[in-house]
């Protein structure tokens, strides 16, 4: 894991002092709310329905057990005992007082964490594949580059007041687990013909009101040019991005309106002119940062674990857990374990302080002290021995953390919606809960197979509904919560935006509608091996629409 050196620690301390002073001036009244709002957002402080919300960055989703314990401590001391893991590898506290935020920031700084640029019209927390560094299918760990971008983008003097927020995501594997094609910039680690490793560059993806898939503007970017090139994209966007309309201000609109070729030309021209700007990465520094992310010392073990096999045959629930929650690790005899934060009737992404402490204990004991947060709002123990899985499983069960539904219909991505969010048009959490209850039968969900349901409480699409196999968008129609349904979206390397089924459904009807879609899939699929998304791509909307909107007899 990355560790702060003196410079990093000093920087965060300066930032905390600066923000503390800004809070004091706001409380004293010398900063107006209009002046303060962009400043507080730039440090992750929102004003939500009930209280302020503080968003903590978990850079590229990696954290230590000590950092997780700090979250638990903050949740208990300054909040109501829980926190919410988001789709952007952040943690949100829902109830902190503004006057307590400086103290919380000092607690976070003590464990090398911060809230810098978790909101605002600036470069946001850089995200990455939650399996980075552990997954068997990876070309190279993208996190050192995410860390370099994190550093370079922190309090950037030129790019702190962009037209709109700016999100960068990286993936090191051909399977895209970081949804890079719906980010402002997506970097994918690739190998060129000579075997040299660099990045394919995607620009202009995004969700929100106008969902657009990113364009690949460069096939291969040498590692050394990562910051230089990113700088050029940002400069073109800062100067040319629209500022006349908040809903047209993201870079995706600029790319869409001017065309990917025009943007490529502008970026390449700036990049060519900028080459001497001191941003070229020396290999020595890449190596130095990369060394922090070395795989922990895991001795290879037998590929098959006798303990696991014995339990698998005797315990069907454990067998399901293995099938859904464990992913192949680089090192034989190990696995990448996803802990689902989606129990039946739970709040997707929420964890109590006790659960956080428990996950920290498990990481310390079984996973080289490391945890990950996924954009699906789950927690990952990245380096566990297969032999330890039965013990970990029992321990998770005892703490209500053993849901065996990773990637299934009840593993729902869901934003906070109108229960918390000031921008929401409808509630999203109760819909997720109702769906999880409707599909609580593990045999049935296993039979349905891979199915991503994603729910947003407004058009901002924090719940990624556009790229859900089944997407649900909560709207307000004349004071009534109404839910629009989309089908066929996908966030992975075969990225697609879902199609709207037709008129929306009431809160009472939306769960039936989801069930109708699932039943239609089951009756039309060629077999269990044809997943929902594959079936949808073959069948199109027609059979689903017919089932959903039966004319009144």
């Amino acid at each position: 894991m990355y560790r702060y050196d003196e410079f990093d620690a000093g920087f965060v301390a300066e930032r905390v002092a600066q923000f503390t002073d800004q809070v004091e001036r706001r409380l004293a009244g010398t900063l107006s709310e209009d002046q303060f709002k962009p400043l507080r957002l730039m440090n992750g402080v929102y004003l939500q329905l009930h209280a302020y919300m503080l968003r903590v960055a978990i850079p590229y989703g990696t954290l230590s057990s000590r950092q997780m314990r700090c979250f638990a401590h903050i949740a208990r001391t300054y909040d109501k005992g829980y926190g919410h893991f988001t789709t952007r590898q952040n943690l949100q506290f829902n109830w902190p007082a503004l006057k307590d935020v400086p103290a919380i920031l000092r607690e976070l700084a003590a464990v090398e964490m911060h809230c810098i640029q978790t909101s605002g019209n600036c470069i946001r927390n850089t995200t990455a594949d939650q399996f980075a560094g552990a997954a068997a299918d990876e070309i190279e760990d993208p996190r050192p580059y995410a860390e370099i971008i994190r550093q370079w983008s922190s309090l950037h003097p030129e790019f702190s007041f962009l037209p709109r927020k700016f999100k960068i995501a990286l993936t090191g594997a051909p399977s895209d687990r970081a949804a890079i094609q719906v980010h402002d910039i997506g970097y994918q680690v690739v190998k060129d013909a000579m075997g040299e490793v660099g990045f394919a560059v995607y620009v202009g993806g995004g969700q929100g009101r106008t969902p657009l898939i990113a364009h690949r503007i460069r096939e291969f970017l040498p590692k050394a040019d990562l910051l230089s090139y990113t700088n050029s994209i940002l400069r073109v966007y800062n100067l040319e991005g629209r500022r006349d309309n908040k809903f047209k201000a993201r870079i995706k609109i600029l790319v869409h309106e001017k065309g990917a070729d025009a943007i490529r030309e502008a970026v390449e021209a700036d990049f060519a002119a900028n080459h001497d700007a001191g941003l070229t990465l020396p290999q020595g520094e890449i190596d130095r940062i990369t060394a922090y992310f070395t795989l922990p010392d895991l001795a290879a073990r037998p590929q098959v674990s006798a303990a696991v096999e014995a339990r698998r045959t005797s315990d069907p629930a454990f067998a399901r857990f293995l099938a859904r929650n464990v992913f192949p690790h680089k090192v034989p005899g190990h696995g990448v374990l996803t802990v689902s934060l989606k129990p039946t009737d739970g709040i997707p992404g929420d964890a109590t302080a006790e659960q956080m402490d428990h996950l920290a204990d498990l990481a310390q004991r079984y996973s080289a002290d490391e945890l990950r947060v996924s954009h699906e709002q789950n927690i990952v123990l990245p380096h566990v021995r297969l032999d330890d899985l039965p013990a970990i499983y029992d321990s998770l069960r005892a703490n209500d953390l053993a849901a065996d539904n990773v990637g299934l219909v009840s593993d729902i991505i869901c934003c906070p919606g109108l229960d918390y969010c000031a921008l929401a048009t409808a509630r999203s959490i109760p819909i997720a809960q109702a769906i999880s209850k409707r599909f609580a039968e593990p045999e049935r969900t296993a039979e349905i197979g891979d199915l991503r349901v994603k729910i947003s409480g407004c058009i901002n699409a924090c719940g990624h509904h556009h790229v859900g196999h089944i997407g649900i968008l909560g709207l307000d129609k004349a004071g009534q919560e109404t839910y629009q349904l989309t089908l066929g979206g996908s966030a992975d390397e075969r990225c697609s935006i879902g199609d709207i089924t037709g008129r929306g459904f009431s809160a009472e009807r939306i769960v039936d509608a989801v069930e109708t879609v699932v039943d239609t899939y089951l009756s039309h699929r060629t077999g269990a091996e044809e997943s929902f998304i594959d079936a949808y791509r073959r069948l199109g909307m027609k059979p689903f629409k017919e089932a959903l909107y039966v004319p009144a007899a």
Partner: protein
Amino acid sequence: MRYFKDGTFADDPFAGAETLSGPDWLERRGSALPSPLVLQLDPGFDVEAIRGLGQERFGNEGLDGVACVKIAFPKFTDGRGYSMGWLLRTRLGYAGEMRAVGDVLYDEMQLMARCGFDGFEIVDEPTLALLRDGRRLETIRRFYQPGLEPEVPAGTRPWARRSA
């Protein structure tokens, strides 16, 4: 409005000078121009075009003879001026005074300085009060990217700097 330069309030050396907008200036180039020459560039003005024009039409860098460039921040949240300033200093090699005008607030002044601004016209009363109290712009002294203030490398990361 007060004029702030080099860490202190000062008398504006260009007070009363005629100020040309970017488009006016381009229009009038080649004819008699006021002296000293003071420009005000609004966000959206294409500063890189200055270089092209300079080379094509005048055979030199476009900003020769300009004594002061004011870059406008109509709202502090409109950040185009930062890139405009950066490009003037780096790509166009402009060495004269570069002044931030408009919605100039204390919390953004260090960012402006790091993008090459060395003069400020300030209206906001709380900002004036802080500066009168002797507050310095340099609240942050460690940077993760090269800036245009006096800065020295911090360690071996080429993107990390300390204020000099």
